[in-house]
């Protein structure tokens, strides 16, 4: 190839279209919604039984209850002990896992489609007939208390804990983790009752993706889950997150830290906010990836960090915008300076046409990549249905991204990136961090790694 031809990037080949077909939907008589996406490409199947309640739905005096119920589902049922369940699932080369997030509780199972029926039976067993054995619950309590101590050694956890407290206040999203005393008081009766009240078909959705036949599958699902009794879905009433009027600095003093973990955040929006598409385009320009502004500035130009990013967390009820980096301690203040420079710039100046086009091309181009594995495709479908996004969401996603304009990017930046009220959280060596960081905030507070306030 001649040097001349090498000078510029080659043109792409003819585009290849990629369409995700619409899944089939059904509802069992007891209200369980079913979404079936038949895909015979590989002999695999993925199941998700998802409940519209998560950690935020913990009763006020039982923090950690939803997660405990989820974790205990596979620790003993009417027919099988914990060990028998583990052996049965793993002997099929399969997995079943259950976990709660803020908004949802999801039981996931995946297997070779040859074992589709076996794993579906086991999934029904753990969801419908768990017994929460006393000895297993006791082990869960004791192990969880140790895990709670362990996570306090991780700087990322400490930063996230403070940021959530500052942004969400009395809203349940503020709790990223239960406390030891919450876990210690969980008892078997509470778990059993909560499971009976919350794990009900009219609060759930069954999503299957993979090598299944819809008619046979629906018959089998009805046999296993058809008798599952409806219940009433609990009403929720959550406090509003606080209104913040000034920028604050919170340092978590972690002696011997080799870096400062920085999180800068403000309250954001829920997943179904109408600004969602302009927001993800704005975030792509600003900090979502390795070619975004903050990465190019803090890492590629300044060499302060291995990675600097911004992130939109959009949950069911609200969310947050945050900028994060782990930087060497000596440039903690310089890093804040560059972050705020970029946060101001995205509000003040319109993004360039090329920058906008690049961000949109990334978001539309990676879309098929995310659907390449069954796991990836399943996650797209699960999120669409759990958040109640439009029926044609996956089919129109790329059009919606393409429609975003320069003006909209600036409008959502002004609305959702608010440096004047941001909470700055830094986990690191307080003696070194404080002098560098204090000029960036109107108020300062310092905590130890146990979460106790220290004298400033």
């Amino acid at each position, binding site marked *: *190839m001649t040097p001349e031809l*090498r000078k510029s*990037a080659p*043109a*792409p*080949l003819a585009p*290849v*279209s*990629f369409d995700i077909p619409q899944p089939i939907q059904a509802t069992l008589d007891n209200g369980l919604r079913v979404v079936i996406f038949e895909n015979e*490409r*590989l*002999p*695999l199947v993925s199941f998700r039984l998802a409940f519209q309640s998560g950690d935020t739905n913990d009763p006020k005096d039982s923090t950690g209850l939803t997660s405990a119920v989820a974790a205990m589902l596979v620790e003993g049922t009417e027919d099988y002990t*914990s*060990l028998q369940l*583990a*052996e049965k*699932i*793993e*002997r099929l*080369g*399969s997995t079943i896992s259950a976990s709660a997030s803020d908004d949802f509780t999801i039981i996931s199972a995946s297997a*070779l489609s*040859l*074992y589709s029926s076996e794993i579906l039976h086991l999934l029904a067993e753990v969801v419908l007939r768990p017994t929460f054995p006393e000895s297993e619950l006791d*082990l869960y309590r*004791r192990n969880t208390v*140790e*895990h709670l*101590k362990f996570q*306090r*050694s*991780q*700087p990322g956890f400490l930063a996230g804990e403070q940021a959530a407290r500052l942004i969400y206040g009395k809203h349940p999203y503020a709790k990223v983790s239960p406390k030891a005393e919450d876990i210690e008081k969980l008892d078997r009766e509470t778990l059993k009752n909560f499971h009976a009240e919350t794990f009900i078909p009219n609060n759930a959705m069954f999503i299957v993706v993979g090598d299944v036949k819809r008619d046979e599958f629906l018959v089998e699902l009805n046999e296993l889950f058809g008798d599952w009794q409806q219940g009433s879905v609990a009403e929720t009433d959550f406090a509003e997150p606080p209104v913040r009027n000034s920028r604050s600095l919170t340092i978590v003093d972690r*002696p*011997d*830290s080799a*870096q400062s973990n920085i999180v800068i955040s403000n309250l954001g929006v829920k997943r179904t906010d109408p600004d969602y598409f302009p927001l993800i385009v704005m975030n792509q320009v600003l900090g979502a990836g*390795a*070619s975004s502004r903050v990465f190019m500035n803090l890492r*590629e130009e*300044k*060499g302060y960090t*291995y990675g600097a990013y911004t992130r939109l967390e959009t949950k069911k009820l609200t969310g947050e915008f945050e900028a994060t980096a*782990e930087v*060497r301690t000596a440039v903690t203040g310089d890093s804040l300076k560059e972050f705020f420079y970029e946060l101001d710039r995205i509000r003040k100046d319109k993004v360039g046409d090329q920058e906008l086009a*690049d*961000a949109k*091309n*990334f978001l*539309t*181009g*990676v*879309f*098929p*990549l995310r*659907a*390449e*594995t069954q*796991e990836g495709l399943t996650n797209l479908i699960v999120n669409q249905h759990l958040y109640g996004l439009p029926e044609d969401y996956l089919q129109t996603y790329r059009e919606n991204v393409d429609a975003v304009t320069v003006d909209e990017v600036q409008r959502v930046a002004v609305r959702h990136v608010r440096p004047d009220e941001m909470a700055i959280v830094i986990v690191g060596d307080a003696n070194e961090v404080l002098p560098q960081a204090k000029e960036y905030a109107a108020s300062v507070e310092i905590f130890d790694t146990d979460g106790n306030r220290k004298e400033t």
Partner: protein
Amino acid sequence: MLFRQDPAASHVFAFFRPKCFDKTSKYMSETFKLPPLAIEEYTLANGLRVVLNADNSIPVVSIAVYYNVGSRNEREGRTGFAHLFEHMMFQGSENVPKAGHFQHIMKAGGTMNGTTSSERTNYYETLPANQLPLALWLESDRMRSLAVTQENLDNQREAVKEEKRLRYDNQPYGQIFDLINEMIYKNFANSHSTIGSMEHLDDATVEDVQEFFRIYYAPNNAVLTLSGAFDKQTTKELIETYFGDIASQPLPPALDVSEPTEVAATYKEWEDKLAPFPAFLIGWKIPPRRSPEFNALYLAGKVLYDGDSSRLYQKLVKGEESVIQLFGFTDERRGPSSIFVGAIPKPEKDLSKIRETIMNEIHDLAAHGPTCEEMEKIENQLINDSVRMRQSSMSRAQQIAEFALYDGDPTLVNTDLDELLAVTAEQIRHAVGVYLNTDNRALLDVVPAGKGAAA
């Protein structure tokens, strides 16, 4: 074997496994055959090995370039250099500016990265299928004409130091795997860490980068693998156009990674300022990847520590209820490799008692081998893993590239599963007896030593 019912089938699965009495599975390996991946392999005149795996099921293409250089090729005084060099591969070449690689790939809707291990350095992209020419242009430009400046080297040196702090120095237990490798291996090529030392990173010069590029980043020291949706004829022409006239180089000097078999009973205590609890890690030196012994020990690991039904999980997390976290894995290398078991015990628990339980379980496996049920679990897990690997063009491209680079045969991607399925319970028993049921191992104790640690 008493008799052979179906010669054709037994050709595919040339092994016999007794059925377990409580039959839950369908004996997949006897009824289930994965369609082979289509593999085409050829070599350009300059020595670049090319492997194509065309699969049009999703309009996505993955490109992986594997260079036959890793931290094992570093010289003394330059630990961490292969990885620092990997960063420099994103700092521009004749026609691509600094960080232009990220930007070109991302604005085309792609993802990319590079990684360094002891064995190799890889660079890879996944893109919408029609953007294949872009990836070939970018990869060929840096293979042909990497641009190195003092400023970019200084900048990436800082980024790498922050990577080291983030992933190793600022994490509780973050340094234990590098420490135990220094105990297991005696040969510098094997024993030193891939992330390297801060001092050696500081010592790296622009001339070092240029020399490393010339020696190791030649087309005849690399494998280019494509997997996904592409037209083979067009693609071959593009590959010839972009890579065909890059000059080959004399092959790098031969590397000696041989090791004495002994580790002996080595012991070390490590004071970890960030660790909240004590922990320990046991490591054994074992034969190279894909050797019959390695394969047997890889499967022994599944029996011992993989999943909630594994023996050590059931003994320690359940049973004795003595550990918070249990983990184990094998480190695959072309030369002597290793296997590890580690645990974070609960406070007040006797570490030596936990280690005794582990050694007792190893002793039992060495005496009796895995059970029929455990063999069935292994079989299903292997098949499951193998099907899952095939879903993504990038995981296919990476597996194929490894077999091409390490074994000179990319079609092993289609027979590797059969090799693992053919391992018998007796072979596992024997390998555990020889390699794990012994004092010939390294033991690292982590002692919390920070200001925050409980006294």
